[in-house]
């Protein structure tokens, strides 16, 4: 199990890194093998930062990320290599992930050099074929080709196959189908579903709510680095508790239902803000406010469990995570 516990991250920005820009605040959730969690947020919500921290491409400022009980920040050398055997990432742009000078299967060769130096040619070949079969690619069609000879969907599948060459159990998939055409993106999405059925745990990072709704069991909604709502996907989409989630869902262009009238505020370009009449479900569930708001375990800080496994955050959190502004009388 991959577990994030009260993870925070801020970037140093400005002259000489004098200013802290908080990107992720107090995020806790866990990913099991065999499930897809979609991590949904708008730009700047910290969703990619979370993926990069899990992949150890970024350090964690506060809190811990553990893999089967081991803090990943402590991993060095062989232990880190074996972590990467089980946790792999795939990113947004398949076209720029490949070096155009090398053939596309060069990415497999890189893995072989680091992890399978002693594997025989036949053994290696079998591994590559298995991985390609898992992503429904025909080896004859994709091996020994240059990246420009392959389509975006094929390249993205090659990258997933590369991640599967190892004994991968967790996949961080950061916007992996945003760049693909409508006719092929659903195939890559279905592929994730099939891999999940084979026991892979997938963190599906996206800004597209309908994709997240389609593929995931659980959904985590992020806003400004903080989890505002998380729970089973049908619950989050069917009975959203947080006004921000409701706004996101209402903004999604649907195919058979037109948008309603838009609230005046969201047109103003000042970003979304909760209406003053909006009750704080977090506050209602936890009348004590911030002090009692830290449930035990991975459920996370600053979140209240409103129904079984369905958590909601404060409508208007202060920077320190306590409930700001909403009168306690609303409870």
């Amino acid at each position, binding site marked *: 199990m991959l577990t994030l516990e009260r993870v925070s991250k801020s970037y140093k920005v400005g002259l000489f890194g004098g200013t802290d820009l908080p990107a992720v605040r107090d995020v806790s959730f866990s990913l099991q093998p065999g499930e897809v969690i979609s991590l949904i947020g*708008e*730009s700047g919500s910290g969703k990619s930062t979370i993926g990069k921290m899990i992949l150890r491409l970024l350090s964690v400022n506060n809190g811990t990320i553990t893999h089967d009980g081991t803090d990943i920040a402590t991993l060095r050398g062989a232990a880190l290599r074996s972590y990467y055997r089980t946790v792999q990432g795939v990113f947004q742009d398949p076209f720029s992930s490949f070096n155009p000078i090398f053939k596309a299967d060069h990415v497999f060769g890189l893995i072989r050099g680091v992890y399978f130096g002693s594997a025989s040619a036949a053994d290696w070949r079998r591994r590559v074929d298995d991985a390609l079969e898992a992503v429904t690619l025909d080896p004859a069609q994709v091996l020994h080709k240059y990246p420009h000879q392959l*389509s*975006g969907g094929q390249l993205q599948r090659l990258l997933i196959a590369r991640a599967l060459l190892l004994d991968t159990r967790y996949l961080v998939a950061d916007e992996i189908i945003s760049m693909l*055409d*409508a*006719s*092929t*993106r*659903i*195939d890559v*999405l*279905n592929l994730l*579903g099939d891999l999940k059925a084979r026991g892979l745990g997938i963190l599906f990072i996206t*800004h*597209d*709510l*309908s*994709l997240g*709704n*389609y*593929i995931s069991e659980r959904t985590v909604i992020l806003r400004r680095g903080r989890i505002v709502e998380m729970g089973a*996907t*049908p619950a989050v*989409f069917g009975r959203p508790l947080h006004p921000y989630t409701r*706004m*996101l*869902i209402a*903004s*999604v*262009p*649907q*195919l*058979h239902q*037109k*948008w309603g009238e*838009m609230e005046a505020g*969201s*047109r*103003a*370009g*000042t*970003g*979304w803000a909760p209406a003053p009449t909006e009750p704080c479900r977090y506050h209602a569930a936890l009348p004590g406010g911030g002090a009692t708001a830290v449930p035990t375990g991975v459920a996370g800080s600053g979140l209240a469990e409103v129904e079984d496994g369905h958590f909601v955050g404060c409508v208007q959190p202060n920077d320190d995570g306590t409930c700001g502004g909403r009168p306690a009388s609303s409870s």
Partner: protein
Amino acid sequence: MSLQVTDLRVYYRTLAGDVKALDGVTLAIADGEIMGLAGESGCGKSTLGNSLIRIEGRMKHVGGEVTLDGVQLPIDDQRDMDHFRFAEVSLIPQYAMSALNPTRKIGKMVGELLATRGVRLQDAREELERRLLLVGLTRDVLDRYPIELSGGMKQRMVMVVSTLLDPSLLIADEITSALDVSSQRAVAQTLVEFRDRGFVKSMIVITHDVSILYQISNTLAIMYAGKLAEKASTDVMMSRPRHPYTRLLISSLPEIGVRFEEHRLTGIPGTPPSLLDPPSGCRFRDRCPLAIAKCAEEEPPFVELEPGHSVACWMVS
């Protein structure tokens, strides 16, 4: 009839030969019509939009003509076209919001742009500020640099500037693709409002996202491999699509409520043909579940099945 495009052909010259990106497109857009133009990458939808503004560099106008409000557009002649650009035809390109000059305050940049059309900023200022307000921007953005605005704000700024001279035709090329869902909706609905207020007479909205087009467009055109596959009113297209490509495309789109466990959607196998040397007959036939022998021999004509609904497919016409 606001815009009439007749058998337009625009090729790209490459070392390997001509890429037939736009290969005989005929369509008409009425006054007040917002036409959505959708298709996969490389289908020629952006080439169509660009051709109505500027045929540049490697692009070559091979045939066909374009008339706007009864006047033939000199799309071949870049100098003559200058009289129409911005004043009569305006284009918001895909990355317009990152194309704002970072060293100029926005107001100054708008002034320079207007000066090229002989309009003084002072004269247009009142209208400019009124329209900025309409899209939720205040007049002080004119004294700011582009870096100080968010992506959605820049996009709305560009929309206001592009339509300031009330062009007859606005082409919006993937302007919502890089935005968050909430700004996406604001930008899309602003397009409709601009049409309603008469800032532009008609519009071509190019995007790969059919669901956005369903929200805002009156008619929908689907392109495939340099040709139109189908055009119809948006409601007809969504409820009774006829071309197999349109049908497969629409059925591959996930919607909120559709879940992998319960209903597995399918994509369209295969890839579009190379436009360097496109196949004979129907260009979709390799991926088409209905293809017959005739599809390989003869190219299906783009025929009108019923008023306003045209399809290029042997199996339905």
